[in-house]
């Protein structure tokens, strides 16, 4: 199984699962942002694994991965801006203290 497509797909699925768990379990907004990055990078690993093992997908894989990286960077920029904005208002990065609207 070593050095096969399945091994890489399982690895990236595990990374994705770790990211998902972290997103759901963490309370710190920055940590949650990092977990989302981990999920996106797991997807990138999936894409590159498909490209590396399936000859027909080879040319597309790196292009798709590059575009995904660019989109993830844009997303992180917006995310950090919002985190800074709320930190200035609340003086805490912990999301479970953002409960002004809870009824």
């Amino acid at each position, binding site marked *: 199984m070593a050095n096969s497509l399945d091994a890489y797909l399982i690895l990236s699925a595990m990374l994705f699962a770790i990211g998902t768990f972290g997103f759901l379990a963490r309370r710190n907004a920055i940590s949650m942002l990092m977990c989302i990055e981990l999920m996106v990078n797991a997807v990138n690993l*999936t894409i590159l694994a498909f490209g590396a093992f399936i000859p027909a997908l080879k040319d597309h894989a790196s292009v798709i991965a590059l575009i995904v990286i660019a989109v993830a960077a844009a997303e992180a920029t917006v995310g950090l801006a919002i985190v800074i904005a*709320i930190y200035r208002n*609340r003086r805490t990065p912990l*999301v479970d203290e953002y409960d002004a*609207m809870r009824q």
Partner: protein
Amino acid sequence: MTWTDFPIIAPLVAALLVAVAIIGVDMIAPGRSRPAIAVALVGLGIVAIAIVWTDQLVRTGQASGVAFGGAYTVDPLATYLDLVFVAIVALTVLFGPDYLGARDLPVAEYAAVLVFAMSGAMLIAGSSDLLVLFVALELMVLPGYLLAGFAKHDALSTEGAIKYFLLGSFSSAILLFGLAYIWGITGTTRIDGVAAALASAHGVSPALALGMALLTTGVAFKLAAVPFHYWTPDAYQGSPTPVTGFLSVGPKVGAIAIVLRLFVEALGPVHVDWMPVLAVLAVLTMTLGNLVAVSQTNVKRMLAYSSIAHTGYILVGFAVYANDPSGEGLTAVLFYAVAYAFMNLGAFAVVAALQKRPGVTSQLDTFAGLGRREPLLGLLMTLFLLSLTGIPPTAGFFAKALIILSAVQAGAPILGLAVVLNAIVAAFYYLRVVVYMYMREPQGEPAAVSHGALLRVGLAIAAAMTILIGLLPGPLIDAATTAARSLLPV
């Protein structure tokens, strides 16, 4: 790109140029809202003309309708959705200055960010490639996150924005994972290629099932379908009210466009596997949305739950479409999207108008005695709420009627019944606002506010469309049918 591609992407290029022009005007005359609004409205008119022009070229065969080697397509569906997006953004621009101006928020940036979001939504509508679809989705939602946190010194606005952002990008990652699997299995990113590969394959492999589950989850988040709706109430309540109006229709219609392109078109050959899931999601979404909306005392939050319920009605149209070869379900979805856009934007605009004085909340009490205090505003709110309930002769009535009819014709009367029962529950909380407006005395004497001309024009358009679609639904049904046909297999 070659020059033959240009007529096809002209509406998109025009939209991007309009956004840049708004920023340019703001740099020349910083902080002044009038020039920016004028450029935005004229620019949106030009974009609408460009959409119709491109559509004519494609219809008459002067242009192929396909650009960038098949990554972007202009068909009747793309034209229909593009025009809906332009109308939504134009109305949101009209509703903005009153509310934002009173709070010293920059109107020019608001308009520019809205137009950027619109360009993303238009790109979704015309995308015929999975990667383009994903980039377009991000182009639509990233400006949405910014708009939600537009009042950056307001604790509620930033709180709504961070919840919207975190769950939005979480769902984008899930959707992307699903897209990666679909691409890996079918070996192509082209939507028609995916459909062809799935049609020739036998059965659903485990990897494809995983991909479809991830896609369904991601799209359900974007649509705010139960049980993936938790971000919706906070994001909608926290955002500045005109922005809430936009978020409740713009990205929602954008998500509908994703379902049309991704599920109906690309995953069409395996529809027996995802349709039951959508049917269950539809019933859950409308029921829970309505039941929770009943107990809300904040009108913005109530309208947020009501928008979840409307997502449920729309999902019914998707859930039944394939049992009915005439595509009635898709026609109903497209009709519903337009009716919902006008009536929901109108309702949020009335809330925004009441909140023109900073500090006024969107609690039910704010509406007490509105019918006497500002008769016209009360009348308009009543119209929009009746339309959201689905009472004839308003747009909302025909929208619901088409959904129910399509469910019955497709042999799923249970889904139609669910819509009817839910509409009865919904009548309770919509009409409660009307009761407050006409039968409750206001506490204290709220100061009268004067409303800007732009807001009046916007409200007039939203109200006129809500009544007009209700009285003369024919042309819109024809347009929706034409748009839906471009998705059906020939």
